[in-house]
């Protein structure tokens, strides 16, 4: 998997059109940034979705909210949608960037006679 693949950051799926609830939950579980879970009653919870169980008698997700609270448990049945609102912390290729910076630094050092 390339880390330079398209990030889900900013994705606001239309449930049922772009993907099913179960698919969106899976992507949110795999996402290394905060998401906003919109409940059926319209209330929202912003935080990191760290667990889900689609096979449970009542499928649920678990989250830590961005204010430091939790874990919160939300049933699939209570979720209207999930928006990928937080920064994707796994996006980008810092190794390649570091190699480039390192090469540039060394080139600059040798150029200056250091």
């Amino acid at each position, binding site marked *: *998997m*390339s*880390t330079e693949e398209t990030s889900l950051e900013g994705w606001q799926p239309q449930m049922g059109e772009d993907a099913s609830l179960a698919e969106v939950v899976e992507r949110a*579980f795999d996402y*290394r*940034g*905060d998401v906003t879970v919109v409940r059926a009653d319209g209330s929202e919870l912003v*935080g*990191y979705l*760290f*667990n*889900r*169980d689609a096979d449970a008698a009542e499928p649920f997700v*678990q989250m*830590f*909210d*961005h*204010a*430091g609270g939790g874990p919160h448990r939300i049933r699939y049945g209570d979720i209207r949608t999930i928006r990928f609102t*937080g*920064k994707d*912390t*796994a996006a*980008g*290729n*810092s*190794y*390649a960037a*570091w*190699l480039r910076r*390192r090469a540039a630094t060394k080139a600059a050092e040798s150029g200056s006679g250091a």
Partner: protein
Amino acid sequence: MSVPLSQMWTVGRYVVTQKLRGKKRYPLVLMLEPLFRCNLACAGCGKIQYPAHILRRHLTVEQCLHAVDECGAPLVSIPGGEPLMYPQIGELVQALVARKKYVYLCTNAILLKEKLEANLFTPSKYLSFSVHMDGLREEHDEAVCREGVYDDAVEGIREALRRGFRVTTNTTLFDGADAARVRQFFDAMMDLGVEGMMVSPGYSYAKAPDQEHFLRRRRAHDLFTAMLTDAKKRWRFNQSPLFLQFLMGKKDFECTPWGNPTYNVFGWQRPCYLLQEGYAQTFQELIDDTRWERYGRRSGNDKCRDCMVHCGYEATAVDHTFGSWRGLRDTVLSTVTGKL
């Protein structure tokens, strides 16, 4: 092999007891991650890519000890994140040593000297600092994406040894590793005076920034064969010789992901230290409800196909040692002769 006799005895007795009890799946090493926060951002690490509020979280000592008691493994490895950044690390280690758990505190050693000077730890046969060293200075600093870390780690190791602590090294090798350079690295660590070394190929974390430099199985066999054939007698490895033979392609083992269960701020991680496919609330739930047949090479799971990492296979090697006369014979033979 450099594992102390008392530790070998404890592990051997534990494994035999599990077998006599008919336990098919038992934990050998608890991977206890009290936090994900780290003072490095290594390219091969998939552990630290989280929002800041997750990186600020850590387990309480009580949560850690509850997990240790729940699991019952005789060895506890404390990775992370960087465990020396855990505010209660001294208290946690003291409590684990009091429980007679063999503790491997896995650290990049940047803070080691400072913490030792603060008298946070007391030397014990139960405590070993397992210092992350991915090769000689050039290779290590490149792997951790920061220059000067190798020198800091060496300074920390020297200070720990001077104070009478057990020190081992933990090396992850990536594609492109030069066998001759790794052999020089082994010499350097022995010159430094560490008790033993651990080596393992890296795992291709889906979330790690660098996806191109991890070893595939065939190349791993070639590299470890070149590294370990005619291993010098002075090299001491703090791991099973059967695992090293597996890395060289001389043994064929299957993964035992339950051998190194992982507990962190999210709970008990399914199915192993490397894959994050969900979390169980209790250790028993992890063991009972994880679909283990989905993992390991024979499962056909792509994520497991090329994995040869010690957290999956070292427990297999140890189980083989204490689970069969042949395994015991091979281990004793290799230990006595030093041949792999």
